Every structure is written in C-alpha cells, then in structure tokens.
C-alpha cells in the first residue's frame, strides 16, 4: 500500500468534520473522494497530509508517517490544493524553479510546461495567468518531483473541456507508470474517467466505499451521477 488511512477523525470544536474514515491505495491506483460542499473532503485531505490535527489508528504514506517524517515523505508526494496562492510578483518560471529546488529528483520541466499548455508563459507573472492556466500550473508543480503519490483537490475546477481532457490523458499515462492519485471532484465524468475506487462522504462519514461498478450496482441506479446523488443525500434536490 502506498497510502493507508485507518479510522481518521477530525474535530472542529464539538463538530465532527471527518468521522472514522478508512481507505488505502496501491501504486497505480486512483481514489476519488466525493461529497457535497462541506462534506469533509478537503478536511480529510488536510488531515491525511498532516496539516490538520486529527485522530487516527494508522496514517502512513510510503510506509512512513507524514507528520513524523514530513521531509522524507514529501520528497515523493505531490499536492495540489483547492486554492493555490503564489508570492506577489512571482513569474511562472520562478515558481517552477523554486519548486524544483525543493526536491532531490525532478521531472523534465520544459516537457511538463508543454504538456500543461504553459509554453510561452514562462516569463509571465503568475497573477496575470487565467484561472485555468493557474490551475494547470498548480497541478504541474504537484507533479514536478515525479511523485509516487499525488493529491489533487478539485483538479479541473475552472478548466475548459479541452484542458480537462488533456489533463486526464496526462494523469492516466502517469497512472499507467505507477502513480497513485487521491483526488476530489464534483464532476462524475472525471471520476469515471480516472478513478478505480470512490469514497462518498456525507457530513464527514463514509456512506459508500468501493468501485464505480459497485456503486451503480448496489444503488440500482443507471448512472454514476445518480448513484452518487443517492448516496450523498442530494437526490431530493433533483
């Protein structure tokens, strides 16, 4: 297992934001964490990364604790947050250079820039990029260390259809080579295209954990979207 999470809980005051969640993934596997806004997706990711305080029975990435062995673990784990801010006045090229300098081994940056459609933007200030371009830069930076495991929080929110397809293609190719991915998404076509397993959260609790075929089969719905709405408790709204 490249990532193991057992009985993870996050509490804010008296509110249980994440309640007893367990999951694990192997190299080359993709898990999608799904749920409505506020269901606990980002809190789960933050707790797994060690940013948010949590209680757990087991939390290991690449066999180590991301909290006790932060520096070693994050040599090989990439992260893209839902919202990515950069230093004022930073250019695309400098953002890449700075991120490259953090790791022992790095990917081919010019190739990544090409893959993510950022060629010709190197000298541009990050703040003058379009929302989609900035999002692609954030994903690029998460992949710059050639990670074995990557966390992508709402990776294609704000991207146009073509850019989304390009990104999926790229991630699937990396998955073939053994990259494990934890992602959150609101788009079921994306989940179907990328994920092997899904975890549906509702008010911090796991309401479904299994494959896409299983969720459709068990819920007796025709599509993943309907099965998701059934489990996430959003069906009444439709």
């Amino acid at each position, binding site marked *: 297992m490249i990532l193991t999470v057992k009985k993870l809980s996050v509490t804010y005051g008296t509110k249980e934001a994440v309640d007893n969640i367990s999951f694990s993934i192997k190299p080359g596997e993709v898990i999608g964490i799904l749920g409505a806004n506020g269901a606990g997706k980002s809190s789960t990711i933050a707790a797994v990364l060690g940013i948010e305080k949590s209680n757990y029975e087991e939390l290991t990435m690449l066999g180590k604790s991301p909290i006790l062995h932060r*520096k070693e673990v994050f*040599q090989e784990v990439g992260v893209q947050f839902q919202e990515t801010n950069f*230093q004022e*006045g*930073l250019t695309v090229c400098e953002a890449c250079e700075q991120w*490259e*300098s953090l790791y022992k081994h790095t990917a081919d940056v010019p190739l990544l820039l090409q893959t993510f459609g950022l060629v010709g933007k190197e000298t541009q200030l990050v703040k003058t990029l379009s929302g989609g371009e900035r999002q692609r830069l954030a994903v690029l930076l998460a992949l710059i260390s050639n990670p074995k495991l990557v966390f992508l929080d709402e990776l294609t929110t704000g991207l146009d259809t073509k850019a989304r397809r390009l990104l999926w293609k790229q991630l699937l190719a990396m998955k073939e080579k053994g990259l494990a991915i934890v992602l959150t998404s609101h788009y079921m076509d994306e989940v179907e295209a990328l994920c092997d397993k899904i975890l549906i959260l509702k008010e911090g609790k796991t309401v479904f954990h299994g494959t896409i075929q299983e969720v459709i089969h068990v819920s007796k719905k025709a599509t993943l979207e309907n099965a998701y709405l059934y489990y996430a408790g959003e069906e009444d709204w439709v």
Partner: protein
Amino acid sequence: MSTFLTFLKIEGKLVWKGIDILIFGICFPIILATLFGYLLNKDGLAGASNFELSYAAVITIGVLATGVMGVPLTIADYRHRGILKRFQVTPVSPLQILFAQGLIQLSSALVSFIGVTIVYHLLFDYELKGSWGIFLLTYAFVIIAMYSIGIFIGSLVPDQKSANVWSSVAYFTMLLFSGATIPYEVMPRFFQWVMDILPLSHGIHLLKQASTGEPLTDGLFHIVILALCIIIGLCGAIKFFKWK
C-alpha cells in the same frame, strides 16, 4: 542549485521589488543621518559629542526596519495567503524559509549601514574612535538579536493583523524609546527607565561604547540581555513555528 540559494535568489528579487524596504530600511536612516549631521552638537567637551554618539544609534534604524518589521510582515503575509501551507507539504524546512528571508532583509540593512556611514564620514568628517573590529562585531551581535525578535514575531503571529500590530509595537517603541532616533542622554529619567527595558537600548549602549573606544563598562549586562533575545527568539521560533 540548492534550495537555500534558489530561495535567496527568487525571494530576494521579490523583496527588493517592494518599495517599503527602500523607504524604511534605506532612505529614512540616510535622511536622518544627514539631519543629525546638521543639527547635532559636534563639540565633545566632556568626552564624545552628541553627533559622534548618534552614529551608533542611526545605524540600527535599518536593522530595526528590516528585522523587526520586514521579516515578520513577509512571513505573516505568506502564512495568510497559504503559501507556507504549500511549503508544508514539501521537504523544505521552516528554518530555510526563515533564514533566507532574514538574509534578504539583512542585505538592505547593510546597504543602509554603508549609506549612513558614508554620510557621517564624507559629509561630516566623522571618525570612529574605537576599533572597527570590535565595533563591527558588536554591530553583528545587535543585528542577530534584532532579527531573532523579528523571526520570533513572524513565526508566532496567527494572522496578518496581529503581525502588523506586534511588529509595529516592537518597531515604533524601539525606534522612539531606545535611543535610535531620540538620544538616550536627552530623555527624562523616567523615560530612561522605560528605555532600559527595551533590548535595542542595550544594543545601542554597547555600540556607543564601542564607537567611542570606551571600555565596555557594564557591557556584560547588555550582552546578557541581547543574548537572551537571541536564545528566546530563535528557540521560540523553531518550537512554535506555524505553517498556517
């Protein structure tokens, strides 16, 4: 290139692009140096003149502006905008970020030091009476103490608002009440007691003694106070550093 050097290069460029470091760190002390040169009494009837004593004080203003203001404000800004959170999930150590920021700010404090020194020497024929070696060592010690206070504030403050408040409190009280702008010697006795609490007062005392070539009488006490600032500041910063 190593992480640290890359940080120095990129962050240095970002900081130097900002105008505040130029105004508060460099222009302000140099203007004040020129003013003091015209205004202060240069007759040293009983020992060193006010003008001679002021040199040791004015060279600390750039250190204050960069170390106690610049460092904590930059770190708090990075924390506020989630930039430190992004660094938290990389192999970088908080020490590398803090020291890189410290060194960058220090570079402008040194430009300010050189500028002030040139004004004192060339415009007003100032001569350092003590040994330059001892004086520069003392200066380096005071710089480390002031930066430790700044790094401590930057590491602990939860948000930008409190960074503003705490660094302003530290900056303005030390700017006004430690002899950096208004000489300790002209202050009423009551204010001098208050001033004795502030770490920079002790730094300026030491620098004055070193610059006039006086033996460092009661120097040990000042050194202990500054050493405490360094130990408490740096240990606290490492122990309580907040990424977000």
